[in-house]
Structure formats: structure tokens, C-alpha cells
């Protein structure tokens, strides 16, 4: 029963996706709405990405500081691993920044 309802909702979603371009071509009014929402989404997406990226980086940094405090002779290796990890976390935030910039400046939804 549950799988059938999931299937039905997926089908409805697909139908919406298939019909959506027709609506987008139809009128400019819906387009303005879409642009407005895309800008709001871009700001919120970057906020979320920055918040959780900062949280993750803070956890890594705290663990590294603790490790260095316990064993100062391992500071060099810990620093290397820390920088690598921070950059890998940060690049996810950068992806969201790029998506936000695309939404702001290139405006894929017209306008």
C-alpha cells in the first residue's frame, strides 16, 4: 500500500516536472515569481551552507587543538590533516556559493 502511494506521488511529481516548462513559457507573471523565489533560495542556501560548514570546521578544529594539546610533538602531522579536512569541507560551501552566484547573476530562469 505504501509503495503504491509513493509511486503515485512520484508520478504526480514527474507530471508536474513535465508540465512545468509549458507554464513557464506561458506568461511572464509566473516567471517573476520564480525569479523572486530563486533569489530567496540562493540567500537561504548560502546561509545554511555557511552555518553547517562552520559547525563542521569548528568540530574538526576543536579536535585538532585537543590533539595538539595532548601530544604537542604530533603538531605537524595534525596540522596537515587539519588543513586538508578544512579545505574539503570548505569546498562544499564554495559549491553552494557558486550556485547562489549563478542564481543571482546569470539568472537561469530568465529576467
Amino acid at each position, binding site marked *: 500500500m505504501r509503495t503504491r502511494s509513493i509511486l503515485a506521488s512520484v508520478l504526480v511529481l514527474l507530471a508536474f516536472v513535465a508540465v512545468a516548462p509549458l507554464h513557464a513559457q506561458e506568461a511572464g507573471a509566473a516567471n517573476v515569481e520564480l525569479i523572486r523565489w530563486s533569489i530567496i533560495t540562493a540567500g537561504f542556501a548560502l546561509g545554511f551552507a555557511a552555518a553547517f560548514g562552520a559547525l563542521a570546521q569548528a568540530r574538526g578544529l576543536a579536535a585538532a587543538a585537543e590533539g595538539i594539546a595532548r601530544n604537542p610533538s604530533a603538531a605537524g*602531522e595534525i596540522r*596537515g*590533516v587539519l*588543513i*586538508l*579536512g578544512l*579545505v*574539503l569541507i*570548505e*569546498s562544499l560551501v*564554495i*559549491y553552494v*556559493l*557558486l550556485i547562489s*552566484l549563478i542564481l543571482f*547573476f*546569470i539568472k537561469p530562469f530568465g529576467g
Partner: protein
Amino acid sequence: MEQLEHPLWIVQAVNALLGPLVAAALHPLGFEFEPGRDVIPNYVVMSGLIVALVTIGCLLIRGRLSVENPGKTQILLEDGVGALYSMLEEWIGPKGRRYLPLVGTIGVFILAGNYMGLVPGLMAPTSSINVTLGCALTVWVYYHVQGVKEQGLWAYLKHFAAPPGAPIFIAPIMLPIEIISHLSRIMSLSLRLFGNIFGEELVIVILFSIIPFLVPLPMMLLGLVTGGLQAFIFVLLTVIYLQGATEVHAHDHEQPHGQGEPAAAHA
């Protein structure tokens, strides 16, 4: 983004000098240029400028190198090369020294490119996705070629399917994951550098358009930090990818005695 780009005199000079020549050369290939636009884009001019500056600098320094009486510049450069050597040996092992030419070139190019954006009248070539994608593709092709050279074609392809020590029936799961992970390295390498440098330039431009005096300075200071850090990260990831590709696995758990295992370097 056209409204944020201001004309740079050096780009205009190069275009006035070489533009008609390049346009005439590209015309048979089917490229058409509008009369008002620059034929040679900003980032190509800036990359060429880096090449010219590094070449001239090396030629100037070459005459003053000496073993008995090294100057300050020579000691500085030797420290830089030594740091790269120690990084390569730490990750790859004693045979890592042979990868210095490409790794060092990429590092010098990206460092110079990042810092060029802070000089008035110039722009950072690495704030264009074309340049960073070029660097990332170069690294990507290079480490695959080195992996094939080091391990042989069949062994290299096999280490995609089944990591050493793992049973062979894991291959149908591992192969798609490995292929996606290797393809995503191009995207992550290029977009990380591009996003950092482009975002930093954008922030400076926006602050400059609000208050064009002293306010952008902290951001430019931050640009000094991120520029060096991103160049270092690009080089570090290049070295890690090279290590993953060229590591020859012995028959059993006889790992080469490296300092650090590449912890989760699959992004």
C-alpha cells in the same frame, strides 16, 4: 557580469597589437568576432603575462646563481623547492622527486595567478573557470598517465575495480563509485579554486563600489591568505592524487612506509 568588468589597459594594448592577427588566424576555423569586442580575453592575456614574468625572472636570476655565495633570492627559492621536495617525499616516497616539474609549475602558476588579482590594473586569471579547468584537467590526465606508467595498464585498471586485499566480487559496487569519484575530482579541483578566487574578487569589487577608500583593504589582506592557501591546497591535492595513482601495491599487506596515509582524500 559585464557591468563588473572594467577595461584593463594591458588587455587593450595586447588586443590592439595582436587582435587582428589572432582574428585572421582563427577566421578559417569558423570563429567570428564582433568588431567591438576583445579578440583575446582577459585571462589569456594574464596567463601569458605570468609566463613572461616567470621566464624573465628566471633568466635574471640564472646569471647570479652560485654555490659558494648564494644570494637572498637564491636561498628563498631553494627553500621553496626544498619544501616541495619534502612534501613529495612525505606523501609519495623517495620516487616522488620525479614529479616535481609539473607540481612545481602548477604551484607557481596558480600562486602568481591568485596574487595577480590584488595588483591594480591586473586581474587574476584563476578567477576564470576556463583557467582553473585547464589546470585541473592537466593534473587529472597527468596522474592517470603516471599511474599507468608506474603500474602498467591492466594493474592500474584493476585497482579501480578491486582495492588490494578486497575480494573480487566487490567490483560491481566499487567500479561505478571509483569512476564517479575520479570524475568528480576534475569538478572539485577546478570549482574550488575558481569559487575562492572569484568570490574574493567579487567581494572586493562590491566593497570598492560602495566605499572606494580603505574599506576593501581587509578583504585584500584576506585575499593574500586565501591566494597562498588555495595554491598550496591545489598542489597538495595533486600530490595526493599522484600518490593514489602511483602507489605500487606489494602482494600482501606490505605497505610502503609513508608518513601519513591519505585520509579520505577522495573529494
